[in-house]
């Protein structure tokens, strides 16, 4: 087996707020290999973005990564000096942020923001950096890239900006890209276009990709592995096909049956009842238990430990759905 690009072990991130301690990421573990795409799925507030920031070492006050290991190519990022981390960010790990409208600095031309990224990591001339930027823009399908470089962000459409951010992520050929719902702000046709383009590039370059989304529909054609997050924990982790075909965790099952195409015509969609719990006062026992159709008495008492099915697939549930 090849060494995973990223190996996360027992990662735990907390926010110490006035109202109390918010454990936004609660002991999660997973591996992503080269060329592999892992989808990180969950409702809003489940901790997907914070997971991404934790890996990048970008958690700010009052937050802190309090436990766990983050191994990039075997090197632990946790406890690494800020200087060394700075060298890896943008170069070996790139992150695409959730909102393309807010990620680019409004007062700097695209060119300046791309060139500064190259110059931060490569000892090349400005002209060469500009060339690299142009190539990257062309790669993500931006027409007349050399002219686009002269634009300010507000002169571009949301889809364009999203492509620019993707181009910046690809530009230095990182080992790992964390893409935080990079397409939710776009309309459906552009979404799928960008998705397939990116997938192709990842495969070609053997780049590991963590794909954050709350939309299971895009997962099927794109990801190899899926991690389902709920209230800061990974409640189910599996290869994509078994997970979609036969969900073990009731929450996963609920997510799947709320996808329109998963339900035969004429039948009503089944939404998961209730709302995601506040991380400040999680329900006793399993966090999902108040909304769970399979909940038993035990679920209100103890938090389910992780059960490993076959070395890859694992889940946290007292009453797993039958695997046929």
């Amino acid at each position, binding site marked *: 087996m090849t060494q995973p690009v990223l190996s996360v072990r027992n990662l735990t991130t907390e926010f110490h707020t006035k109202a109390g301690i918010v454990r936004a990421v609660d002991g999660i573990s997973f591996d992503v290999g080269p060329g592999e795409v892992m989808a990180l799925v969950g409702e809003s507030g489940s901790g997907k973005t914070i997971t991404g920031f934790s890996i990048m070492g970008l958690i700010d006050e009052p937050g802190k990564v309090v436990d766990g290991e983050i191994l990039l190519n075997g090197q632990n990022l946790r406890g690494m000096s800020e200087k060394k981390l700075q060298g890896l960010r943008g170069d070996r790990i790139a992150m695409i942020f959730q*909102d393309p409208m807010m*990620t680019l*600095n409004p007062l700097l031309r695209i060119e300046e923001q791309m060139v500064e990224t190259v110059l931060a990591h490569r000892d090349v001339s400005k002209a060469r950096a500009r060339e690299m930027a142009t190539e990257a823009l062309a790669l993500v399908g931006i027409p007349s890239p050399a002219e686009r470089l002269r634009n300010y962000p507000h002169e571009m459409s949301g889809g364009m900006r999203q492509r620019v951010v993707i181009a910046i992520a690809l530009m230095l050929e990182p080992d790992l890209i964390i893409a935080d719902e990079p397409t939710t702000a776009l309309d459906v046709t552009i979404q799928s276009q960008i998705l397939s383009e990116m997938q192709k590039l990842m495969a070609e370059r053997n780049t590991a990709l963590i794909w954050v989304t709350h939309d299971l529909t895009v997962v099927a054609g794109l990801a190899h592995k899926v991690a389902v997050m709920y209230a800061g924990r990974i409640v189910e982790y599996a290869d994509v096909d078994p997970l979609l075909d036969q969900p073990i965790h009731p929450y996963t099952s609920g997510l799947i049956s709320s996808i329109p195409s998963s339900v035969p015509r004429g039948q009503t969609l089944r939404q998961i009842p209730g709302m995601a719990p506040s991380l400040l006062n999680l329900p006793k026992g399993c966090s999902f238990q108040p909304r769970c159709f399979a909940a038993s008495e035990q679920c209100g008492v103890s938090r389910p430990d992780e059960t490993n099915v076959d070395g890859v697939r694992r889940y946290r549930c007292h009453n797993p759905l039958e695997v046929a």
Partner: protein
Amino acid sequence: MLAYLIRRLGQSVLVMSVMATIVFFGLYMVGNPVDLLINPEDDLAAQEAAIARLGLDQPILVQFWHFLQGVVQGDLGTSFVHNQPALELILSRLPATLELAAFAMLLAVIIGIPLGMFAGLYPKSPVSKGIMAGSILGFSTPNFWQGLMLIMLFAVFWRVLPAGGRGETAELFGIPFSFLTLDGLQHLFLPALNIAIYKISLVIRLSQAGTAEVSLQDYVKYARARGLSTRRIVGTHILKNILIPIVTVLGLELGSVLAFAVVTETVFSWPGMGKLLIDSIGLLDRPVVVAYLMLTVFLFVVINLVVDLVYSLLDPRIRTKGKNA
């Protein structure tokens, strides 16, 4: 854009005329300059000749009419005291005041922005708390007293800087400036600092608030995610974004520098427009006061326009809007 400019200019002309009218008639009601200006020992004929020369024997409306005629031709009357065209007199004092104002603004920016950004970046540090407390003090200290204290410390106790005057000047484009000689710089420093302290506090406040706000923006976190150095992030990404409100406010404050200059110039005997105004008010030198006012309003209009232009230069979003309009 053009229509807007024209409207703004028209409005300014209106303001200037209203102000001029109020001040002209207002000043007429106060005291009689004849008493001050004419030597009572002179014989009657000489006195009357002087009055006629100054046009003070004519009815007020006629005087006002002459005044308006003059304004249109750029002639704002002749100083009773200095016997020199009022506008020329004020303009001859303008460089001294502008030099003072510009130097003060420079101090405000180069001291205020770094301190404010530091306080915004590290809000919990005791240094930041000290900076912010200092800025409150800077806001509250009465300008004239602060000037006296600067004189007391630097000129009386430590004897390192002169207490007043403009010092040695050198000419640039035929205009005398103090900053070109060492002696002049020494004279310039205290009065400029006196004006600057309030502005420094203001700039600290603005840059602290701006930095604190901008640091939370996604694009700053994204800049970090791209592995940019702290220096680059603070010096380019944050600085550019906080500069817009600072430039706007400072530009508008340039006007109030003129007002503060009145106080500071009086304290430090700096021979600028402000000191001239105070002297002229005391001597009932009506044309100079009116001319000062007209010139100040005019400067305000220009400053406001320039601020608008610079603002659009700094913010590409506005620039494009202007192009499309």
